[in-house]
């Protein structure tokens, strides 16, 4: 099992964003997490990655409890993530953005020059993979939104994560780019990376995911193969609000 939560709960004042959610995601697969707006998907991501503290419940990654880990420790355990409203370092160059990621910090890597050719080559590799290597020297804030999304993805990949959580990778992105992102996800999955993807674009979810979990009001209401999910009456009800 890749990632497993038990009775995970988080409320904001009166709103229970994640409500006793017990969810499992499969190692080596492209997992989907879908649900209507406000169903708690992003909050679930934040709890799992240590960005916010859950009120109760637990999170385990590959058998180890990570409930109390701060977000940087979660990242170094091998979980990379992107944000729904894509986040890059606006006043750093594309290259510098990539050099931020840390998987194995040590005094030696700390004092190593940021100009280290090996690291730069690795960064260029990921920039090429996402297709923005020609922007290496541009400041991140000068990139278009779609390019920033690709940059964020490259930055996450630079941290060499085993599991990658993407919060709406297709949000605000033109169709051609969605295709490119989907292709990249599939390739990386073949190279052994596990994905957990929150996405509203059903076409993308259905074609990309091996396993889908459906959230409604903070808890999973269905899970299974995409084709089965599509016909599940509970899912239709949640989406149509019947």
């Amino acid at each position, binding site marked *: 099992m890749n990632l497993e939560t038990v009775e995970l709960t988080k409320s904001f004042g009166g709103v229970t964003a994640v409500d006793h959610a017990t969810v499992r995601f499969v190692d080596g697969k492209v997992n989907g997490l879908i649900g209507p707006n406000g169903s708690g998907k992003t909050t679930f991501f934040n709890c799992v990655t240590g960005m916010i503290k859950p009120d109760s419940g637990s999170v385990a990654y590959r058998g180890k409890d990570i409930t109390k880990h701060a977000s940087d420790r979660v990242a170094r355990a091998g979980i990379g993530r992107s944000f729904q409203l894509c986040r890059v370092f606006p006043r*750093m160059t594309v290259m510098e953005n990539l050099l931020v990621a840390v998987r194995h910090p040590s005094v030696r890597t700390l*004092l190593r020059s940021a*100009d280290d050719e090996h690291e730069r080559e690795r960064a260029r590799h990921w920039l090429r993979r996402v297709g923005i290597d020609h922007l290496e020297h541009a400041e991140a804030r000068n990139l278009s939104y779609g390019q920033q999304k690709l940059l964020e993805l490259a930055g996450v990949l630079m*941290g060499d994560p085993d599991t990658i959580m993407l919060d709406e990778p297709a949000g605000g992105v033109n169709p051609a780019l969605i*295709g490119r992102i989907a292709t990249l996800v599939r390739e990386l999955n073949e190279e052994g990376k596990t994905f957990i993807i929150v996405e509203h674009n059903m076409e993308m979810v259905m074609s990309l995911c091996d396993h889908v979990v459906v959230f409604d009001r903070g808890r999973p209401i269905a899970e299974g193969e995409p084709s089965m999910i599509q016909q599940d009456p509970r899912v239709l009800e949640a989406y149509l609000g019947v």
Partner: protein
Amino acid sequence: MRNDSERTASAGRTASADLGPALTETVVVAPDAPRRRRRWSRAVSLALLVVGAALVLSFPFIAPNPYILSAGVVILNYAVLSTGWNFMGGFTGYISLGHAAYFGLGAYGTGLIVKYLELPGFVAWVLAALVVVAISVPVGIAALRVRGASFVIVSIAFVLILLLVFQSWREFTGGSEGLIVPRPFPDLLRPEHHRAFFYLFAGLLAAALVAWWVIDRSKFGTALKSIREDEDKARSLGVPTTRYKLIAYVLSALVTGLGGGLYALWFGDLDPIFQFSILIGSYMVLMALLGGVRHLFGPLLGALIVGIALEYFKLEFGDTQFHLVAAGLLLGVVVLFMPDGVIPAVGQLIDRFRPQQTSIRDVSAAELLEQNRRSDASATGAADAREASGEASTRDASDVSDASDPKEVTR
């Protein structure tokens, strides 16, 4: 130049909104323009560095009288403090208004060790620096739990507490009577004393600048700057922000404390109200902001400008509070008109007079055609694109970079 590039970038963005997928890649940077620019600016920096160092080193001989020389010492001291502050403020963006706490602790630490342990001045100086480090660790752990305005408040609270302690603990610190610190070179006459300390401060400043420079170009420095940009994002990428911030904070306290200790040995008379004043802390911030916190020499340049201005106002208007008004006005001007400080502002001005070679170029018609052709191809093969093999997509990516080969564009 930045303005130009911003305009081009946003033009590219609106264009891509109109024309759809065809123009998503239009913001293209010719990769070797920045490189050439960097080489150019490196040569200029090196020349400036040599001239600057020569000026500093010869200043004690140029200075017409001991008064001017002592003003030089004061300015170098400010430069050390402000550069010290910039280890924290510049890299991580955490604004400490109470950094005078470490200036005072370094100074009083040195003075008290000389007085009570009767150690030589410079031994006391080193020991006091260790004390500063020992104090800054727990204070840093506590203060760095909060961000933004809260951190500013905490830093002010810290210096105010120290002020009260050092004022009221009369038997130990001398209170507001002051603390006399014996001179480390009793045989030197006053001008020679100033001269010796001018070089000591210059040495300390050089060491601090080298340390800042090393961090600036290290992976550690990149991590600290990412904290300044977006701390939570940096954490999500695995940067151990808590630890890194603390290291920067302690280094910052150390340099500031060393500056304070040297001040104690030079000036020889300490008063809590000056050592632990918010004003000194504010000067450190003002100088760094004025020169430019992202630049190695920003705080030094700021110290030079503010220091000279302060000395001038004191000379001209005596003991009035006019210099405070002037400092406040200066801060306002900086924040409003040069948010990044003097160095970037001057850089932009110079760029304006250099031959046009924007690093972000517009797309030529031929390239547009090429891009349209390619996006047409990908649109018709949209279904295939999903099934596209890894090989195909990497080939595609390298196509893009071939098309933007800088040599074809800039020649």
